[in-house]
């Protein structure tokens, strides 16, 4: 069973972004970048499937300029077998990302595609579901448990009211939630080994897809800031403030 893992290069989750002074976008110059945390969980899950003898090959794919090869090398160091970079300088909408991934799915014919549920930059939470629609595959989003069972995969999903388990016919799409697994760190020998693993570059333009933008970013502004309030000394004072000043309890 082949497993395809699309990953995204994003701002490191510990970094707080700043909005550019001309409000055109956020400022990513000289900011530390990393593999999107949910994508890292996807890579880890694919590798565990391989270690468990369920998967035969793990292929990482990323869409972006040359710099995303850094994240593909990370995926290879973690245990992916080979990598594909779809090269573009454009910041593509989710639908166009899903269309490019659809082409890779057609070429590679994976039985399972594991993606992060959302990227922590755009916070869209769309690509996996869109890829499901385009490929006609079923989807298990926000997964906390994945179990391959013959020609099906059982996915336990984190939903608003608790957990839901569904059975999907393979091939299928899974998007990861935080509790699916805890990703490993790449060891130094594996980082060295990753440099020799195959990484193929394919220009996005070669896929024959109309990649014209579907959205226009009009402006980006900083959020309204909240003023820090006051420090109260006692619980009595707190209760009194909540009753009489904020009037939120009675």
């Amino acid at each position, binding site marked *: 069973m082949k497993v395809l893992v699309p990953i995204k290069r994003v701002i490191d989750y510990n970094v707080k972004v700043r909005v550019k002074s001309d409000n055109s976008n956020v400022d990513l110059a000289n900011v530390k970048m990393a593999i999107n945390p949910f994508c890292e969980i996807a890579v880890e899950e694919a590798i565990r499937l391989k270690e468990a003898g369920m998967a035969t090959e793990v292929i990482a794919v990323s869409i972006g300029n040359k710099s995303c090869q850094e994240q593909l090398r990370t995926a290879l160091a973690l245990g992916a077998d080979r990598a594909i970079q779809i090269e573009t300088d454009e910041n593509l909408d989710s639908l166009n990302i899903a269309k490019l991934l659809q082409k890779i799915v057609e070429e590679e014919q994976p039985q399972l595609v594991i993606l992060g549920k959302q990227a922590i930059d755009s916070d869209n939470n769309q690509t996996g579901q869109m890829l499901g629609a385009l490929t006609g595959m079923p989807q298990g*989003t926000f997964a906390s448990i994945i179990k391959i069972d013959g020609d099906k995969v059982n996915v336990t999903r984190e939903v608003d009211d608790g957990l*839901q388990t569904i059975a999907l016919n393979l091939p299928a799409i899974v998007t990861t939630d*935080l*509790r699916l697994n805890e990703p490993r760190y790449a060891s130094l020998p594996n980082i060295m080994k990753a440099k020799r693993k195959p990484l193929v570059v394919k220009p996005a333009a070669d896929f024959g897809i109309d990649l014209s933008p579907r959205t226009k970013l009009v402006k980006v502004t*900083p959020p309204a800031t909240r003023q820090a309030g006051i420090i109260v000394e*006692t*619980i009595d004072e707190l209760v009194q403030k909540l009753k009489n000043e904020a009037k939120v309890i009675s």
Partner: protein
Amino acid sequence: MSILVFAEHDNSTLKTETFKTVAAAQAIGSDITLLVAGYNCQNVVDAASKVNGVSKVLVADNAVYEHQLAENISLLVLELASDYEHIIATALTTGKNFMPRVAALLDVTQISDIIAVDSTDTFIRPIYAGNAIATVQSLDSKKVITVRATGFDAVATDGDAEVVILDIAINAGISAHVSDELTVSERPDLGAAGIVISGGRGMQNGENFKLLEGIADKLGAAIGASRAAVDAGFVPNDMQVGQTGKIVAPDLYIAVGISGAIQHLAGMKDSKVIVAINKDAEAPIFQVADYGIVADLFDALPELESKL
């Protein structure tokens, strides 16, 4: 400007977030249809017909929609899509699950998680865990949108919409429901509660969350948690408030033993009044709190409970 709004429900109750999503639809246009897709969901249909501002309720009541599987719901919405310029759902786990499928089937991209409407094609949404606010114009002919309910005020329930029963039951046949493991609670929903009290890593273990329960009972509050508390295994994930958990904006949010990581603030900083209880005076949570108290939560919580 015809708008289709997907009703969020559990086959018995219409979720209050839907009233807020209809308010978002009203900011776009006035011809609003509500879609109720489920099974044995007459109670939801009755409630939906009373939502102010809705002119029509479409009902797809069939076993194939019982668990609102994304594969089946997306095909249903696709059938209806030609009559509408805007298709809108709440950004809860059901809407987040099936709506991007609808968008891709319609060959449009989705505008996720909007908090305000600028015009019929331009919307405002948080990015980077709410550390930046983007104004985004959709260039597609049809707009597929999910709404962050906390951005809008609920509409009233004095409407009288026409109910139309649909004869559509499409089973994609590629997915099936197996089981649910739902959290049963006497307390209000996190998303709907007027008061939320949340615990973080400072709670030390799941047993200590009992200290929050007495206070929650007195205040009629929901109980939440930070990702740190969930990751540490203190409480289940459906209690998580934050960028990747639930987004809440109650009248009062009490953060107990929560340091205030940006990912947590993303889920609660639009609350009207924030209280922080933390023994670390330097914790970032105090920078967003209206009232802070630097105290050991194991002293402060019993005292707070006794004085409410």
